[in-house]
């Protein structure tokens, strides 16, 4: 299935784009998304940490992603 992934802050600099499409197997977990992204963009591993959001909610590693879900890579936030 094709999944849209959004990149913010420094992760957007790493990906070179705000939004990219990726192909993932059915029943992909957030854990697999993280490892795939880290393989494609190794600089992610140098961050203090980063979060993954699924449909505008912070998502743990076990969350399973479905086609059409909105995924986002969120480096440490620094608003305020």
């Amino acid at each position: 299935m094709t999944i849209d992934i959004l990149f913010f802050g420094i992760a957007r600099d790493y990906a070179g784009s705000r939004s990219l499409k990726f192909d993932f197997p059915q029943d992909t977990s957030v854990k697999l998304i993280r490892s795939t992204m880290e393989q494609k963009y190794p600089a992610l591993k140098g961050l203090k940490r980063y979060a993954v959001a699924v449909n505008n909610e912070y998502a743990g590693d076990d969350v399973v992603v479905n086609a059409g879900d909105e995924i986002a890579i969120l480096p440490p936030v620094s608003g305020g």
Partner: protein
Amino acid sequence: MRLPFYHPSAEDSMIELSDKPLSFSKALKHVRSHGSGGIDIFIGTVRDNAAGRKVVALEFEAYGKMALLELEKIVGHAQATWPVEKVAVLHALGRLEVGGVAVVIAVSAAHRDAAFTACRYIIDTLKQTVPIWKKELFEDGEEWVSAHP
């Protein structure tokens, strides 16, 4: 999504992300009420230095939809936890020069203790959970704040 993002608000709270200069008096106007005796307002401004380095400007970006949802949770939690009357949260996006206003949080309450406590809770939590990022622009480079260990 287009700016500004407006929170589809309960009438007691106003939440807004905007690339226009934040209207401080709009926040104050929102929270003033005849039932409130105390208003606490926090204003975050752009400081001219960071860890000894001279800052020229900041650039803010947000994951707009999610930022509003997270702010809504924070404000909802504050309203459920302390006896506050009204809350306004405004956050700037885009480029801000030194001295510019990045965030305005206003909380009114019958008594000041709730206003202070809720206002402090909102800014502290905003900084931890709301998907907004700032990049510091120095004379000789730039850096995403808090990204690296």
